[in-house]
Structures are given as structure tokens and as C-alpha cells.
């Protein structure tokens, strides 16, 4: 059909394959770039980059920024920007730290099992309220988002300072720190179960979508294309689980775990970490945000407003309230990111989340979110965050000097956007 015939100069055969699979060529390009990046680092680190251990670390280092990047997609798609996310993260982290070390232990008693979740709930409420407040100033008072959140960048960083009196708060609740990363993983069995359930869900969605399309009489992909897609999804999901399971808990640590339970470590027993809870949280956030973006009116209105604010308004969409909602979502996601970031450290520090706003914006933009509005994907932003983190930690592993690392990241950001502009011009997308 004519709408697929717009892509750039490719051999007809290749175009047919991509057309049949209906794959997003942009996504393929990003994945390709990511794989090349990983392979290059792997060569320069003598194979240390692509080990289960490093991949595990990469994923848990990416989570905090990736969670916020999904929200930044909505913000940027509606033609706004949020410079306050790093500071907001600090304020919420401070609130959660004080709530779980000071407020709740005084009420419930130290070590109460409900503390971790109450602390997170408190943090999310604060994050949503602050985000909604900023959104209200942008939507209803008409102050540009750049200014409101630039103010927020200064305000919330220092509100955090006042909440904690500038002190580092910790140690945080033990259960709470489990969502930080290495301290809390699902273990091998649960990870496999999760992986298999995910594969089943993905395949079911594919079948349901095909059925729905053919019930309306729309053209459907050829069966071989469906089978190929199913195989790719299955391999990707199970491969991911397999890698995280392959990172084994060090023997000394395993021995301590057994001793804590009053058992002795059986000779020769090894256990993998499996999927970290923080990564599980990111996966849930990614799914929910993707569903919101594609399958809800809210998501449809976010993209419509980004594409043409006047048209959205003339269609009866309350674009002002929409702005409040978008920034409230961003605030809530900052709170989840704050939980992950502070749990990973085990403390809430003053400089937590410093410069995260730039990482988050960069992740969304590298992931294909257009600053002009109307275009962006959740999976793109997460992949963008992963690419940024891989670059940074890869260079650190190779031993590139810190100043040079930042120079490279900055250059990559600009080049990524340039490539995207050229790509869009070619495809007319």
C-alpha cells in the first residue's frame, strides 16, 4: 500500500520484509545503534561489558532515569519541558526518608512491615501534588513551562535541604531498600515464571489483535510475519530473564543469607539474582504508560494537543486541565524514581538526582521524542535512557576521563537528534 512506500532507498526485498513485519524502522535503528555500542565497548573492555554482571548493573542503574523519562515523553509531546525533575526527586526522596525514619517509626514502631509502602505512598502523593501545582501554573496561569520548572529546579532542590536540614537521612527501612536494585531481586524461579507469563501475555495480545483486525475485515500480516514477531518477542523476553538469572549471587553473600536463616549453605549450590524489583517496577511503569499513551482518551488527547493545540481545543479537549494531568503524572513518576534512587543508595542525600533533569530530557530526546511536540514513544525513551547509561558506564569501564565522558555524551545527544531529523525528512514522517 502507498503508505508504506514512503521509506527511504532500500532494496525492494528488504522493504517487503519490513513492510510485512510492520516493524518500526526507527526503533530498529535505535536497537541497532545500541547493539553496536555494546559490541564496541565489549571489545574495548576485553569482554567485560557484555557479562551478566554488567548487564544486571546497567539495568538497575538505568531504572530511575528511565521511569522519569516515560513521564517526560508526555511532557515534551504536549510541547512543554520539565527542568525540575531532578530537584523534585530530591524533595520527594527527603520526604520519604523522613517519613520512614522519623514519622512512621514514632507512630507504628521501628521496623513495622507497613513502613516501606506508606513511605512510598506519601512520596507519590507529594510528587503528584507538586507536579499538579506546577502544571496548574503552566496551564491556567499561562507561565511557560520552561520558567515554572526552572524555578522549580531551584525551589525543590532547596526545599529538600530544609526538610532534612541538609543532613543525609538514613539508613532507610530495610524493606524499602529492596526496590533499589541488587538488594532486592526476584530470584531465579520467580523470574522464570514472570518471563513465561510475560511471553504468554505478549502472544495472547498478538493473537487478540489479529483476530480483532480480521473481524473488521482489515488486512492482516502474513502468518510467517506473525510467527517471526512471536519468536522475536519470546527470545527477547526469555533471553533477558536468562541473563539476569545468570548473574550469580557471590558465594560469600549467599553463605550469609543462609546463615541469617539459620541454615548452612549446601556445598556447590549457586543461585542467580534474577529480575531486580526496581526493574520490575520499571516494566510495570512502562506497560501502564504505554497503555495510557495508546489506549486511553488521556493519551490520545496528549498527542492531539501536541500535534495541534488549537485543533484539540476546538474538539472540546480541556487542554489546560490536560497540562495539569501531564505534570501530575510526571510528579508521580519522579516519586517512584526517588524511591528507587534513594533505596539504591540506602540513604537520602542532598545531591540525590542532581542533573537528572538533563539525563531524563536527553533520554526522551534520544528515544525519538520531538521537542516540537506530538511525537514520542515510551519504549523509545526507555531505550534512550539505556543508551545513555551504557555510554556512560561503558566509558567509565574503558577508563575514559570524566570530562571526556561528558563531552562524548553531549556530542552523542546532538548527533542522535540530527540523525532523527534526517530520518524524518526522508520518510516524511
Amino acid at each position, binding site marked *: 500500500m502507498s*503508505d508504506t512506500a514512503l521509506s527511504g532507498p532500500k532494496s525492494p526485498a528488504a522493504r517487503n520484509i519490513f513492510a510485512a513485519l510492520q516493524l518500526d524502522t526507527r526503533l530498529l535503528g535505535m536497537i541497532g545503534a545500541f547493539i553496536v555500542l555494546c559490541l564496541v565497548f565489549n571489545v574495548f573492555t576485553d569482554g567485560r561489558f557484555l557479562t551478566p554482571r554488567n548487564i544486571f548493573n546497567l539495568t538497575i542503574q538505568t531504572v530511575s532515569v528511565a521511569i522519569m523519562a516515560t513521564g517526560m515523553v508526555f511532557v515534551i509531546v504536549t510541547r512543554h519541558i520539565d527542568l525540575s525533575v531532578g530537584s523534585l526527586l530530591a524533595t520527594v526522596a527527603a520526604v520519604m526518608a523522613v517519613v520512614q525514619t522519623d514519622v512512621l517509626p514514632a507512630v507504628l514502631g521501628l521496623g513495622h512491615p507497613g513502613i516501606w509502602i506508606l513511605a512510598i505512598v506519601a512520596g507519590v502523593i507529594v510528587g503528584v501534588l507538586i507536579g499538579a501545582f506546577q502544571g496548574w501554573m503552566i496551564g491556567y496561569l499561562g507561565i511557560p513551562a520552561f520558567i515554572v520548572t526552572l524555578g522549580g529546579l531551584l525551589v525543590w532542590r532547596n526545599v529538600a535541604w530544609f526538610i532534612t536540614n541538609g543532613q543525609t537521612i538514613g539508613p532507610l527501612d530495610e524493606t524499602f531498600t529492596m526496590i533499589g536494585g541488587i538488594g532486592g531481586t526476584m530470584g531465579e524461579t520467580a523470574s522464570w515464571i514472570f518471563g513465561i507469563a510475560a511471553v504468554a501475555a505478549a502472544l495472547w495480545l498478538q493473537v487478540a489483535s489479529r483476530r480483532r483486525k480480521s473481524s473488521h*475485515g482489515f488486512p492482516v500480516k502474513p502468518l510467517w510475519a506473525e510467527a517471526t514477531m512471536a519468536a522475536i518477542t519470546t527470545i527477547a523476553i526469555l533471553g533477558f530473564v536468562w541473563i539476569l538469572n545468570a548473574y550469580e549471587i557471590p558465594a560469600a553473600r549467599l553463605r550469609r543469607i543462609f546463615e541469617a536463616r539459620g541454615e548452612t549453605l549446601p556445598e556447590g549450590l549457586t543461585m542467580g539474582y534474577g529480575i531486580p524489583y526496581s526493574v520490575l517496577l520499571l516494566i510495570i511503569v512502562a506497560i501502564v504508560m504505554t497503555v495510557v499513551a495508546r489506549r486511553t482518551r488521556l493519551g490520545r488527547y496528549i498527542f492531539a494537543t501536541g500535534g495541534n493545540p488549537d485543533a484539540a481545543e476546538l474538539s472540546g479537549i480541556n487542554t489546560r486541565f490536560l497540562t495539569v494531568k501531564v505534570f501530575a503524572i510526571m510528579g508521580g513518576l519522579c516519586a517512584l524514581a526517588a524511591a528507587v534512587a534513594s533505596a539504591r543508595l540506602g540513604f537520602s542525600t542532598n545531591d540525590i538526582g542532581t542533573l537528572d533533569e538533563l539525563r531524563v530530557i536527553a533520554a526522551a530526546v534520544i528515544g525519538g521524542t520531538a521537542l516540537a511536540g506530538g511525537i514520542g514513544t515510551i519504549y523509545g525513551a526507555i531505550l534512550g535512557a539505556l543508551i545513555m547509561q551504557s555510554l556512560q558506564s561503558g566509558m567509565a569501564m574503558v577508563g575514559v576521563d570524566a570530562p571526556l565522558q561528558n563531552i562524548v555524551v553531549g556530542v552523542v545527544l546532538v548527533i542522535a537528534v540530527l540523525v532523527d531529523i534526517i530520518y524524518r525528512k526522508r520518510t516524511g514522517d
Partner: protein
Amino acid sequence: MATPLVEMKDMCISFGGVRAVDHVSVDLYPGEVVGLLGHNGAGKSTLIKILSGAYKADSGEILINGDQAHIHSPRDARHHNIETIYQTLALADNLDAASNLFLGRELTSPLGFVDDDAMEAETRKIMGRLNPNFKKFHAPVKALSGGQRQSVAIARAVYFNAKILIMDEPTAALGVHETQMVAELIQELKKQGLGIFLISHDIHDVFQLCDRIAVMKNGQLVGTAKTTDVTDDDVLGMIILGKCPAGATPGPGALADDGAGD
């Protein structure tokens, strides 16, 4: 005489001291096409945007089927079955035809999720009627030609059982063939008993399509006339000079008879 479908009485709206619409009254009957004419800046689009809910009038009242209607937002206008095809088309360029057609009124599944497949099916149906050559159901409307974009905007207005249709320069961006298509559509909708306000600069179009005309100048109504009672030159005189000919009913903006006005 039957009750008018729409009666706008004594409408006024100002923007920063400029009276964009100044005590204008117009009406529209079922099965009738009323052409709104005037220079750029005469206040036609502003008047029509009051009816479509984009602007709120400072004073005046709107009667729909003889009942007073309160239109404060585009949503209110839609509740009164008023649909508008804007000059700018008001399409979200980044979304596909179906998303635009149902924007603000999405079809949802029982669980409340947006049902894209159902919307695409409906879009295919109505486009099959309006523009059978339309095939790009998955492309963002940015990738469509002017005529195709126009047909999406028209489909949006027609799909939801409009009783009152406002068309702001519907043929300005179109080729000969597509203009003909729009003309045929207007005739068909007329037969179905819709009332249509048509804003146009093209005198030829106006005489071909409209039953009556209303001419505006500097925010005021110069006059209204049946197209059978006036000539091209009469209408041009109304638009350019504000001179109301014998066959027309003069409004507050008509030039005084002695020609000493202004």
C-alpha cells in the same frame, strides 16, 4: 413561517476595544445554505466561532430550534449538533484519519479503552462514501494531500449527525475536482434537511450553492438577501462599499441612502 434552526440575535464581541462583531443578527432554516460574505477581517469567522463555541459572545442570544442555547465551549456546540469545518481544518497532523475523525468523541471498548479498530472501521465506511479514493488510513494526516485532509475534516463534521453545519472556506485549498465534490456534498446534505452556514470569498461558489447571503463589513451586518433577488454586482457592492441594493434587507451596517456615510 417555520421556526429557524438557528437564530443569532444581536451578537456582539470585542477584542481589546475592537468591535469584531457588532450587533449582528442572522438566521438559518432547515435545508438552507446561507452564505456569509465580507472582506478579510469583516467578522465572518468570528461570528461563526461564537456559534461553534470557540469564542464567547459579550452579548446577544442564540436560539436553536426556537430554544435559547448556551454555548460556552466547542463541547456545548457539539451537544446542539453543531459541527464546524474550520478554514485551518483543525486537524492534529500527527494523528491518523480515524483519530482525527473521532477526536474528543473516541469510541471505547467496554473497559473504557480507546477502540482504534472500531474507529478505523467506521472511518473506512464514511470515507468510502465521501472520498472512495482515500486509502491512507494509517498515515498521519500530515502525509495527506490538501483534498484528502479536507475530506477528513468534512467526514468529521458529517459523521456525527450534524443538524447545523458551519463551513469556513471549505473549498479554498481544493482543486476543481474536489471543489465539485464538496458542492455535491452540500446539495446532498441540504436534501437531508441540514442547515449550512458557508463562509466563502468566491462569489461564483456562493451563487451556485447558497439560498441566501448575509454580508458583513467592519463587524456589522450590511444586509441579507436571497441569491435569486440580487446580482453579482449587487453583492460586490455590499461587500466593498457596504451599499445595500433594493432586493436585500438592510442591516445596521448598511450605508445610508444618501451615500454620505463613513
